[in-house]
């Protein structure tokens, strides 16, 4: 039975399949193109970039830019490369992603399966919160963090990212759970299962794909955030993007494009890693067991 439900019900002919593959591959090329530009140029000496064709393959292959971006490039006064900032980012991203995803899942669960008067309005309020421009948040948030004693610290950054990610994670889970059969939850309630037990035993096991979406979203946004990192971090909590930005965005200095590109790819590795690992949970049939009860 599991095998049967893992199949897609759609059957396609040979010509359709060829067409599908063609489209998929063409899009893959479209997505890869800028990456190609970055990769190729990160393997060239700088003179080849400023002096020649930026789309061409390197004549003189070198990995020096990568080594430089990782450990010797100038980020601030000290030439540390991006290396020391990785840990800061991970210490900030991991708790922020976990907390916001868990809260989002619980909120989505309450809003769909434990409904009460006014819940739709509350959800609407949370959704609208997604649209608050970060520019207006900065100053009052700085004041709040100062009052809470969290200014310039990793917990402060975690708080900021959880708060402004909640709207999204709630949205994802609420919309996903709204398609989840309520009868199953009812049946469990009648069996005497409590709030958390139902969540843990019934909702969570079938939430694979949406957890992936939520984690990818949060991980990417928080990892790549610059504005909050630059404004609310201290020297001990300065995240990766601020360092990358310092590497790339000097205004009156010499621009080493090859090092910039290498740095950008390095900085993206953790996110890519998450995509590949999380992607495994995009498997049809995760739901099958519980849907069939």
């Amino acid at each position, binding site marked *: 039975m599991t095998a049967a439900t893992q199949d897609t019900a759609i059957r396609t002919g040979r010509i359709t399949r060829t067409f599908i593959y063609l489209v998929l591959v063409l899009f893959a090329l479209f997505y890869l193109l800028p990456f190609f530009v970055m990769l190729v140029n990160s393997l060239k000496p700088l003179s080849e970039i400023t002096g020649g064709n930026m789309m061409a393959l390197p004549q003189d292959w070198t990995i020096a830019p990568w080594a430089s971006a990782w450990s010797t490039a100038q980020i601030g006064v000290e030439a540390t490369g991006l290396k020391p900032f990785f840990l800061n980012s991970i210490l900030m991203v991991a708790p922020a992603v976990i907390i916001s995803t868990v809260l989002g899942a619980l909120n989505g669960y309450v809003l769909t399966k434990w409904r009460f008067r006014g819940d739709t309005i509350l959800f609407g309020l949370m959704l609208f919160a997604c649209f608050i421009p970060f520019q207006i948040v900065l100053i009052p948030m700085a004041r709040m963090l100062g009052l809470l004693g969290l200014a310039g610290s990793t917990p402060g950054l975690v708080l900021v990212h959880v708060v402004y990610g909640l709207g999204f994670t709630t949205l994802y889970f609420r919309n996903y759970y709204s398609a989840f059969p309520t009868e199953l939850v009812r049946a469990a309630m009648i069996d005497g299962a409590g709030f958390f037990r139902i969540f843990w035993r019934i909702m969570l096991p079938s939430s694979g794909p949406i957890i992936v979406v939520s984690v990818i979203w949060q991980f990417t946004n928080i990892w790549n955030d610059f504005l909050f990192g630059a404004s609310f971090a201290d020297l001990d909590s300065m995240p990766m993007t601020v360092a990358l930005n310092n590497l790339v965005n*000097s205004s009156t200095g010499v621009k080493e494009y090859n090092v910039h590109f290498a740095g950008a790819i390095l900085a993206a590795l953790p996110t890519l890693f998450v995509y590949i690992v999380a992607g495994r949970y995009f498997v049809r049939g995760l739901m099958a067991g519980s849907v069939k009860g």
Partner: protein
Amino acid sequence: MRGYFGKTLTAMAALALTTSVAVADDVEVLHWWTSGGEAAALGVLKEDLAGKSIGWNDMPVAGGGGEAAMTAVRARVTAGNPPTAVQMLGFDIQDWAAEGALANLDEVAAAEGWDAVVPAALQAFSKYDGHWVAAPVNVHSTNWVWANKAVMDELGIAEPTTWDEFVAALQKVKDSGRTALAHGGQAWQEATMFDGVVLSVGGPEFYKAAFIDLDPAALGGEQMVEAFNRMATLRSFVDDNFSGRDWNLASAMVINGEAGFQIMGDWAKGEFINAGKVPGVDFACFRVPGTAGVVTFNSDQFAMFAVADAGAQAAQAEMARSIMSPAFQSAFNVVKGSVPSRTDVPNDAFDDCGKKAMADLAAAAEGGTLIGSMAHGHANRAAIKNAIYDVVTAHFNGEYDAETAAAELVTAVEAAQ
């Protein structure tokens, strides 16, 4: 019970005090000097302070010529957690001083005699209400032209000294099939050219009337129309792909001989040196023709924020002293491509262009022709600077003709006031 509590509290308070004094012996420095040369130059200061056993907590935030850093400062101050020293430009220092956020450096300044050696035009930014609040690190100037020497020699171009000679030289380069003027289409780069062009049209008097006094008659007058016409002339010597180009790629065009000239501030020198070119041999630097004797400057300064405890204040004063020491001024500026902010620093360590710039600065400071650069926020406040940017860029991109641009300049500046 109460007595016991009271005692512990006092003890804890005392402990907190001593630790905070110990920690405060560091300086926390917010800046945007993150490229190799710049950061290495700043490293000199760090070493100097380390020698006085003052620690350096680095807080670099690059981006947009300090824009990102200025945003970060606002967040830090609002959170009640200001850095000790912040790299700042021109009017930002005055704005922060007006908020009462900056420290008073009069004691160090008096002891070191800053008043006598720092040009008055710089002091106008480093002092607020007669008190020193910031220590100037360097002086950049914006009215420079960078030229490829080989191209000039090949085409028999002599260093132009008047606007017409410059246009003729550009024409020669264009006729040879090269791009005459390397330029990047970003608002600040266009404004940097505009600095030089306005000076070349009306000299320092007109420049001051327009950009510092914001006199509508100057902003909208015939001379301004002529300045915009000259910008249009320059536009005709720029290639079609200029829009959005980074300034250093424009420099690379001159370095490679693809282009003849670039109008850019003296930080461009670093690009040439970095490419292994020798000043005076491979490339030439001269003032924008028609602006000789005048220096439009911008100066990076470290604004010192008001910090509460004595240890931090001592560290801060020590840092200000180090910044202004001739040894650091020389070491830093040789690397950075700018010139020292005090006029009594020996020029031995500087290259040809640097020596020329130092002599120009001293002469301009003497003759009263050292003027703040509009393009780099040393002529007026941010709101007005950007209003001028808008019009200059719009004109350069063909949205306005010269007459409309001059008229727009008056309205834009008025609206921003």
